[in-house]
């Protein structure tokens, strides 16, 4: 028997009594769970918590930058604020965001398995995340760190008198959380696909997470050893990054960015996977050039390892290194662009509807394109010399990370919310929130491109008077953006009790996850599926629906 797509009557759907949320009760059943879905929810709550702390810090940054003087806080404090904002947002929010929540939840279901390969390691991963997050908070509360999230030497090793060691160790621990998630995904995707689920029948969300997982496993350990060396340098004074002892501060940057550049692809690739799913569902069309998108994901991962020194063009690397890394950076942009083109061609002649996930996906496509293009400007060494360490960089990475990744995350959360909770969120309110977020985002970050080009440096609490107008716009935008992010918090929680019952397949999407109940059973499937359906087979679905049946097969 083959897989059968079902389109149950949404009007009569009821939340099934037995599901992964109701299967077991009690705090311990959550804290000691091996169920990937429960772990995903635990992660979702945790990263949301850290997101709001990071967001509050962003609010403080923007408040300080309302005026040219460093009047809201001393420069030292400002350094701590933007450092903690970066550390929390990068390591405790963006890196785990899609993989640890949506990836954990969906990947086993999408490949047709009952769980990830190593459920206990999955749980361990969450606990490591909590320990790392807790240590970061402890460092923050007991005085903070002021080196920037990049921990650049010799500031971090010699001149800073803040909690570098605690934060460094915290990120070391959090890094292992990331490694274990990636390891779990790679093994699951290779070894636990259901019969008939070939690589090219996998949803592109799986491909993207697979590529990101490769980066997690191969890149994060280099960050780990780098942090160990910084801690040793700071505590014992071993001299490996200390110029007075013969060490090279640039070596730190080589090792740090060897991870941190692939890290940005760890952050964005899963988001791109979400976009593939959402765009195909809401244009009722298979993703254009599936193979190209799948291979592009892996290409981004592989090439992502070759370009790290484009963060170091002005730091003292050799001119030849600058040349080579600049060239390679141009290459790495190509697969990302291929994906954007493919999504655009997916939309072309599709039956497009504008549900909330799709609104966020549109936002992603526009904003990520701008962010990505500005990345190409920065990859060109000549322009980078002018633009680096200015607000242009800040705008660039916020466009890709917030306009891109965060929008993709919200898109995914809204897309799979009915599956995870069995409930729908209020559509009109969520569409409003998406629009508010888009407007707020552009108002916040577009002026930063301008102000960066005009020469405003980053990481400074005080700036020349002529930049104030644009900074005021930016802060105003940040307020609107904050509202845009608060709204989903409120209505998503509200929907848990009062939202409309979703049923199995509210979007009438293809994909294994939509063939099972919402919320799913603990074991996902009552029997392991045998996959014969092509992925994103919307044409087949349309043909079936023409006969006005709700039960097809």
């Amino acid at each position: 028997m083959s897989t059968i797509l079902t389109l149950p009557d949404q009007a009569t759907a009821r939340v099934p009594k037995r599901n992964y949320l109701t299967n077991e009760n009690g705090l311990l059943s959550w804290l000691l769970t091996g169920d990937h879905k429960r772990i995903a929810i635990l992660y979702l709550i945790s990263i949301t918590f850290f997101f709001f702390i990071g967001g509050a810090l962003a609010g403080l940054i923007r408040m300080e930058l309302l005026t040219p003087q460093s009047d809201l806080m001393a420069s030292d404090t400002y350094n701590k604020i933007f450092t903690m904002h970066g550390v929390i947002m990068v390591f405790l929010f963006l890196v785990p965001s899609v993989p640890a929540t949506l990836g954990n939840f969906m990947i086993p279901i999408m490949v047709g398995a009952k769980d990830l390969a190593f459920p206990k390691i999955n749980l361990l991963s969450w606990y490591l995340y909590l320990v790392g997050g807790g240590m970061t908070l402890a460092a923050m509360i007991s005085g903070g760190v002021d080196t920037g999230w990049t921990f650049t030497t010799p500031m971090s090793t010699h001149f800073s008198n803040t909690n570098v060691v605690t934060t460094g160790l915290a990120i070391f621990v959090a890094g292992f959380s990331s490694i274990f998630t990636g390891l779990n995904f790679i093994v699951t995707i290779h070894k636990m696909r259901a019969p008939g689920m070939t690589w090219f029948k996998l949803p592109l969300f799986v491909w993207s997470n697979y590529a990101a997982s490769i980066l997690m496993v191969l890149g994060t350990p280099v960050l780990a050893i780098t942090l160990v060396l910084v801690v040793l340098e700071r505590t014992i004074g071993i001299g490996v990054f200390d110029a007075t002892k013969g060490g090279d501060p640039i070596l730190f940057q080589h090792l740090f960015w060897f991870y941190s550049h692939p890290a940005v692809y760890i952050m964005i690739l899963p988001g791109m996977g979400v976009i593939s799913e959402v765009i195909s569902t809401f244009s009722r069309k298979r993703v254009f050039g599936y193979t190209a998108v799948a291979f592009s994901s892996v290409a981004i991962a592989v090439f992502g390892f070759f370009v790290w020194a484009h963060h170091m063009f002005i730091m003292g690397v050799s001119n030849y290194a600058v040349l080579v890394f600049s060239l390679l950076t141009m290459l790495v942009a190509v697969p990302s662009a291929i994906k954007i083109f493919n999504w655009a061609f997916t939309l072309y002649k599709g039956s497009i509807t504008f549900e909330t996930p799709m609104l966020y996906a549109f936002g992603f496509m526009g904003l990520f394109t701008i962010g990505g293009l500005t990345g190409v400007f920065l990859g060109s060494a000549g322009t980078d010399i002018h633009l680096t360490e200015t607000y242009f960089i800040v705008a660039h990475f916020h466009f890709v990370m917030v306009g891109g990744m965060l929008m993709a995350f919200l898109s995914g959360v809204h897309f799979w919310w009915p599956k995870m909770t069995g409930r729908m969120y209020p559509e009109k309110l969520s569409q409003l929130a998406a629009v508010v977020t888009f407007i707020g985002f552009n108002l916040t970050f577009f002026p930063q491109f301008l102000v960066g080009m005009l020469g405003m440096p980053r990481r400074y609490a005080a700036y020349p008077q002529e930049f104030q107008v644009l900074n005021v716009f930016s802060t105003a935008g940040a307020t609107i953006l904050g509202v845009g992010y608060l709204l989903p918090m409120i209505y998503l929680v509200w929907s848990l009790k009062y939202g409309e019952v979703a049923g199995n397949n509210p979007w009438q999407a293809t994909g294994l996850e939509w063939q099972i109940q919402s919320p799913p059973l603990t074991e996902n499937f009552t029997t392991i599926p045998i996959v014969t359906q092509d992925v994103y087979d919307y044409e087949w679905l349309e043909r079936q629906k023409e006969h006005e049946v709700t039960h097809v097969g």
Partner: protein
Amino acid sequence: MSEHFENHDPNCGHDEAEHHIVGPATYAIIFGALLLGTAITIGASYLEMGPWNPVVALAIAVTKATLVVLFFMHIKYSSRLMKLTVGAGVFTFLILVGMSLADYFSRAWGQW
């Protein structure tokens, strides 16, 4: 419709590693080779070979490591996936070392 899905079923594949048991004879030979390699590398370090000293030392070390990976860790008898996995790790390691060293070496070449 319930045809044979062995070709598609990733779980039905046969894997030689699970059935191929490497015996003591093979292990003993490799052990001997490793001891020999160690002796050679110690001896070679006492010879004056100029720039070739580190090359020889690394070559011997790589050979020994390869023997351990292939035989003690059973990669020779493992699936293509395992071989590819080891290769990916070695490749990424070489990128880290190679491209970082390239920067340091090329600094000495001056401006252009």
